[in-house]
């Protein structure tokens, strides 16, 4: 048999191919349909032509062509977002940055690098490692996700507790606005007069423009590091220890917590030496100069022991690596239990951790689901993982109901909707739970100052009521998106 090409004739595609070589504008139906999702659970997005520019000028060309045809533009990095931020709605032009993956320059003395947005987070840290530097934000997806995506979601990671999330590490960003203009927001040296446009842009989930270059701050590797594995007989004791460490005035580099279910799964999977009789473990890493590190590690151990914790200190780099391996294998371990998971992301005040975790267990039980908790406890960033098999009839309803209840419980104690994954499609309709109409309206104004016609990634973050009525039609989540 012969195999046909399935490409619709489309003047937009012709226009885009005047800007980019034909093979960097993909328009076959299959090539578009596989761009219909990211790493979130939303399926069924509809992509228009998919463009792979390699320069700022090419991105401008794509944006101009899309504008001439009245089509929206969705920027996409590696597509590992968990909130559906890069899921295309209503056949927009999808601009993928994966081919813009170069390290443009490194200034070791100034601890500054200019990177293209498609550069992979871990590739940057590897490239600068010979200089004793690294890029501090280390999302668990760091070997895949792009720095442009990190800027888009203001990504965090285990080691963002002391040094802050992506925003604190971005000095400037070159952005192509929907008008087609390219503009540098912020200043690579660190100080620019005027409003902090840079700060307003970071975390905008592709709704204010397309990042085409980023000036990132590089962090020196700490001279001393100590890693402790604390085991507890109850989740409460673990959570209270986390609060006690913070209350004691210690800001460790990382505080991660894992509950019994995930400890078991991880031990079966990689055997990191975690105590399987514990109800929860807490990994605390302190880094810096040796005096402070030792003092803080001692104090953390003391605080844990006072709360009935068993303390294991990593004796060397190998043991330290093993502990982190246990933490980082968590995702793999889950797949051994159920094929699908829904990873939630809310933040609660660190003093309320124990209380909210207990509520999470109750909620999950009520909805007859399984949960595992592995999360950034140091900044109160909960990540309850709901496990399910999507082929089980009716299970999605329960997963969504439990998710809503977890969000409500987090907000009720003064928490927030998302700590690092963003709002995207996933939490768009939860925004009114956290913000008043006036609050949302203000966010819409910020967005419109950058993108007056709302052509950048429409339909995300802001519930439709809060933006122009005429985009409602466009931003309606299509059937089947809730996979």
């Amino acid at each position, binding site marked *: *048999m012969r*195999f*046909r*090409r*399935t490409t619709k004739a489309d003047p937009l595609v012709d226009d885009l191919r005047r800007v980019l070589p034909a093979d960097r504008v*993909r328009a*076959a*139906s*299959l*090539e578009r*349909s*596989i*761009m219909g*999702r*990211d*790493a979130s659970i939303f399926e069924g997005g509809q992509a228009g032509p*998919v463009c*792979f520019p390699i320069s700022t000028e090419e991105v401008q060309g794509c944006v101009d062509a899309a504008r001439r045809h009245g089509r929206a533009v969705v920027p996409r990095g*590696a*597509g*590992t977002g968990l909130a559906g931020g890069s899921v295309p709605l209503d056949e927009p032009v999808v601009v*993928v940055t*994966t*081919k813009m*993956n170069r390290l443009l320059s490194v200034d070791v003395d100034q601890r500054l690098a200019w990177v293209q947005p*498609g550069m*992979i987070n*871990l590739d940057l840290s*590897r490239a600068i490692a010979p200089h004793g530097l690294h890029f501090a934000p280390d999302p668990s*997806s760091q*070997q*895949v*996700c792009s720095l442009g995506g990190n800027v888009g979601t203001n990504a965090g990671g285990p080691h963002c507790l002391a040094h802050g999330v992506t925003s604190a590490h971005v000095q400037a960003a070159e952005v192509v606005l929907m008008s087609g203009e390219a503009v540098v927001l912020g200043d690579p040296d660190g100080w620019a007069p005027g409003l902090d446009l840079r700060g307003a842009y970071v975390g905008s989930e592709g709704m204010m423009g397309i990042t085409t270059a980023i000036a990132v701050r590089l962090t020196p590797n700490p001279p001393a590091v100590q890693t402790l594995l604390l085991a507890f007989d109850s989740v409460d004791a673990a959570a209270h220890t986390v609060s006690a460490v913070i209350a004691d005035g210690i800001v460790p580099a990382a505080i991660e917590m894992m509950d019994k279910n995930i400890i078991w799964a991880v031990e079966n999977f990689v055997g990191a030496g975690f105590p399987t009789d514990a109800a929860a473990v807490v990994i605390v890493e302190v880094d810096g100069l040796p005096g402070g590190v030792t003092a803080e590690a001692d104090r953390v151990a003391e605080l844990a022991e006072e709360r009935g914790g068993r303390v294991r200190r990593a004796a060397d780099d190998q043991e330290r690596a093993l502990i982190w391996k246990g933490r980082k*294998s968590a*995702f*793999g*371990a*889950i*797949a*051994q239990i159920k*094929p*699908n*998971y829904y990873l939630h992301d809310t933040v609660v005040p660190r003093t309320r951790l124990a209380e909210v975790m207990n509520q999470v267990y109750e909620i999950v039980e009520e909805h007859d689901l399984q949960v595992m908790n592995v999360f950034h406890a140091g900044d109160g960033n909960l990540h309850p993982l709901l496990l399910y098999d*999507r*082929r089980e009839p009716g299970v999605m309803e329960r997963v969504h109901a439990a998710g809503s209840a977890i969000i409500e419980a987090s907000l009720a104690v003064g928490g927030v909707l998302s700590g690092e994954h963003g709002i995207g499609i996933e939490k768009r309709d939860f925004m009114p739970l956290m913000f008043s109409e006036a609050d949302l309206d203000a966010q819409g104004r910020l967005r419109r100052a950058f993108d007056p016609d709302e052509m950048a990634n429409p339909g995300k973050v802001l519930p439709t009521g809060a933006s122009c009525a005429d985009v409602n039609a466009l931003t309606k989540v299509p059937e089947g998106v809730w996979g």
Partner: protein
Amino acid sequence: MSARVSLGIDPEELASCVACGLCLPHCPTFRVTGEEWASPRGRISAMRQVQDQGAAIDQAFLSSMDTCVQCRGCEPACPSGVPFGSMMEATQAELTRRRRLDWRRWGFRVLGHRRLLNLLSRLLGVVQRLRLLPSKRLGLPKIPLAQERLRATGSDVWLFTGCVMDAWQRSTHAAVKRVVEAAGAGVALPGAGAACCGALSLHAGLEDHARSLAIRTMRELEGSAPILVDSAGCGAVLKEYGKHLGTPEAVAFSERVLDVHEWLSDRSDRLPSAGERGQDLIVAVHDPCHLRHVQRAHQPVAEVLSHYATVVALDDDGLCCGAGGAYAAMQPDLAVSIRERKLEAIGRSGANIVASANPGCTIHLANAGVAVRHPLEIVDEVLDHDG
């Protein structure tokens, strides 16, 4: 629209991908293109479009599938344990059924006939010397016109010799055999029945042909002696006979299969020492995909070599070199781009020679001017001079 096509992929397997994307950087074709259709996640999504959603098998689908090197670098990277290799094999089998006129259907049949293959190879060698062939572009090595004869020396272990490698690189088998013998084992050699493991046929979707080759091979390598394999690609398939054929005999057979380095690393204390020899050798170990990702047995190579030379690791997380069986010939442009990354990593390592335990990789890298040998050829030379 035409009737829905099943690709014959197990629905459980197809459902197991959660689209997390963690496999993307481990996929050579994604690394060089940055395009989703050339990534494991994209390929799985494409398979779902066809098998679950009734999308047509079109050009875009074909190029997504055919550009896959089948290196299976995506498998160990996947936290959800998605069995990508078997999904791709099923897809290729279905595509081959549809591509009745494909040359591979007939071409790979030759591999099972040792005499014919040797004859054709010699012919090819002559044509090559007459400069009638664009060898580099086709990814061909220099094919020998005459080959030394291997002789059995005992029955402690089998040495699997295979098809193309035996026809084109028999001197490698000879070196491997000498090293195994130096470790104190008598080597048995299979007859013409075990002429081919079936790997190339399997990857090209010729399942039936692969199955008949497997049955012949098993019959030939009888008994309970370990079956040593010096080609990573063959070893991977031989180890999966149990899974593919599903019979108790096949399972027992696969359990006897060892990559030769696995076997040696358990006996490295019995190998003669190299003395001063080999000290100025800095060897970069290239991990063939079928050793690292499929057999997950790449460590022993470096371990065995480290007794004889300075071993340096490549810093590219074991990304494929682009050889992939017949891939270099079928997708030359991608194969070369993928190789480019590997060459950069080799350059960074500071090595003066590269060791590769797979003939396909050796040929592909040598075509780019890299000094590359089978690991045991390197060992053999060091030992030889000593003895």
